[in-house]
């Protein structure tokens, strides 16, 4: 099954390069999404895990990441069918877009599945390079700026992560391995000084990719300039895969019993992320940038939860699922709004519900899901993190956490309410009516499904998912 996920996209890309038909390109993206989903379901059921190709594996930790990636990709692929029809670019350009999307998802899948730190590094860098074109897709001045910053900052970050890998090699003494299972096995014998050094470099290296403040600068630009389906993929899956690598390295420190240092680092990065979001969301002018900042916030929450450990880990995984689905839905809906109004400026938008009911309500519910309104699963996860803080007697941290989240909630709520309700200005009615016809059914259904999952998971976590989450907790 792992072979299918990794080899099919390469074949698909070769075929796409040969055939060069618009319909075929779109078909391949859909086919890959469906195959990805089927393979993931089979892997989750334990079928086809044996006979792996070297360097790739499915274990308890990465299974949940793979499921999220698969689900979000499937939903984005469905949305994409409608989205591609709204673009008036040449067939060749759409072909490139589909081609790079497949490569991008392949790179993320490679990162998630790799059982070797070196291979994971290679695939993380590959995600940067493959998504650079997608961010530059619209070829405007702003998109080139965003893409340049993205490639340059992420490449430097990833290069620093490689320094971390070399330090990890130094820490190992006589053992020479980058395989995660071997690292865990020998972690007790590692030199703690170099292990700590390597974690600093890897946290900042892979943290750049994950969007943790203070190395998040590429994130709002890239997310806001990319086409909406790509923003959804960037936010809901790319950041997770970088987080997985950090989690794996963190586990090495945990076993080597110098995790106190790592926890402090994660906690600091997490709170800086919340702070940065609170400061910038307060005055935000562009709604896609607002969503990007919200991603930084949620990555911060994941870092804080990981640092707390114990019961908070369950919350981290729930948060991971909830954030990915809710944020993907939010970004896809923002694509609809962009299509309707033709602008990303919050100032020029009001009365989304009046313009288009479905988009408006999806926007409101995405907002409710992301700001942890019960029964969104994010409510459970954030509640558990707060509970864990109180149990561990981190009262000041808890107060700070709640305060920052409240400011962010206020910032996002203000914008969402302003955009959704209110009066639609007269001069726009005609244009919006024309644009409304471009929105197809498949540009609403994915968001609806994802939001449904988010709100149901808040009340009921099915036993098989609970089982997977509990297994994944062991890997943190």
């Amino acid at each position, binding site marked *: 099954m792992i072979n299918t996920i990794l080899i099919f996209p390469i074949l698909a890309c070769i075929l796409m390069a040969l055939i060069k038909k618009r319909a075929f390109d779109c078909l391949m993206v859909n086919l890959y999404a469906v195959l990805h989903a089927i393979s993931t379901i089979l892997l989750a059921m334990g079928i086809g895990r044996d006979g792996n190709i070297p360097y790739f594996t499915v274990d308890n930790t990465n299974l949940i990441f793979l499921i999220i990636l698969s689900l979000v990709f499937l939903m984005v692929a469905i949305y994409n069918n409608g989205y591609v029809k709204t673009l008036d670019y040449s067939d060749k350009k759409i072909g490139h877009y589909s081609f790079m999307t497949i490569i991008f998802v392949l790179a993320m899948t490679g990162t998630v599945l790799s059982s070797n730190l070196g291979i994971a590094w290679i695939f993380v860098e*590959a995600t940067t*390079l493959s998504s650079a074109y997608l961010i*530059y897709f619209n070829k405007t001045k702003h998109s080139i700026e965003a893409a*340049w910053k993205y490639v340059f900052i992420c490449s430097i970050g990833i*290069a620093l992560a490689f320094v971390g890998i070399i330090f990890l*090699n130094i820490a190992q003494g006589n053992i020479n391995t980058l395989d995660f299972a071997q690292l865990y096995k020998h972690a007790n014998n590692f030199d703690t000084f170099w292990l700590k050094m390597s974690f600093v470099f890897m946290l900042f290296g892979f943290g750049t990719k994950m969007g943790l403040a203070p190395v998040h600068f590429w994130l709002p630009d890239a997310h806001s300039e990319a086409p909406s389906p790509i923003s959804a993929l960037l936010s809901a899956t790319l950041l997770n895969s970088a987080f997985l690598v950090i989690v794996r390295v963190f586990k090495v420190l945990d076993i080597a019993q110098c995790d106190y240092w790592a926890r402090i680092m994660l906690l600091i990065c997490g709170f800086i992320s919340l702070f940065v979001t609170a400061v910038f969301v307060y005055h935000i002018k562009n709604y896609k940038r607002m969503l990007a900042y919200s991603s930084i916030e949620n990555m911060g929450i994941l870092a804080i939860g990981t640092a707390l450990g114990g019961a908070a880990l369950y919350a981290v995984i729930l948060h991971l699922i909830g954030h990915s689905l809710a944020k993907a839905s939010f970004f896809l809906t923002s694509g609809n709004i962009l299509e309707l109004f033709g602008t990303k400026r919050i100032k020029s938008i009001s009365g989304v519900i009046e313009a288009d009911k479905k988009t408006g309500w999806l926007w409101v519910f995405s907002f409710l899901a992301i700001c942890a309104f019960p029964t969104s699963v994010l409510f459970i996860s954030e509640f558990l993190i707060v509970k864990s803080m109180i149990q561990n007697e981190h009262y000041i941290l808890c107060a700070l956490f709640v305060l920052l989240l409240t400011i962010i909630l206020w910032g996002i709520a203000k914008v969402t309410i302003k955009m959704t309700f209110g009066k639609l200005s007269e001069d726009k009615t005609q244009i919006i009516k024309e644009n409304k016809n471009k929105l197809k059914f498949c540009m609403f259904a994915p968001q609806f499904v994802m939001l449904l999952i988010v709100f149901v998971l808040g009340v009921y976590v099915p036993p098989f998912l609970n089982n997977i989450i509990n297994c994944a907790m062991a890997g943190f």
Partner: protein
Amino acid sequence: MENGFIILFGLTMLYLAATSRIISHVRLLVAQGVLLFLICACHFEHQSALNITFLTIETLIVKTIVIPWFLFKVLKKTKANRDVSANIPHFYCLVTASIILLCGFLLPNHFFNSDTMKMISPIYFGVSLATIIISLWLITIKHKIISNVIEFITMENGIFLLSLSVAKEMPVLVNMGVLLDVFIAIYILGLFINEISKEFKDLEVSNLSDLKDYNND
């Protein structure tokens, strides 16, 4: 002999800090590639044929020929010449870079007292870290986009030297992947430089500061 090459490698960074003509920076990349090859060549008797082939391809072909050739092409196309308006005068650049390099020579001797560290040569370690730090610092003060790419490459060279300083080897697969990624990254950055020069009239970094949150409109 080997140490001599490493010191020469360190000195190339001072040259980078002190000069402003971009074409000479690219020539310096060629020199760094050759030096890295010579440093690798000092160890060839201990290594497998596969590794020797790989290291030769990486240093002599990619680092010395392909990347500089590509940058020459970009330079010709964009007609970028000098990076005159760095934030800090070149003399101070040189002084700061020298201090960092000096620290690189001196500090590792204090670090490597413990027994586990015997496998790393301090001079390798110091010079490579100094190279990485000088490159990162130069990225922050230079104003031309293409200089930033050149400093990114020197940083990668520093990391390559650091990975040589660890006596143990990465699997060849990992090495090849790293090389491929870095190469494609530079290729993409080069393509973007072309696009930027089409879009804006000069290659200043300040052109790329339009996307921000606290502006005045």
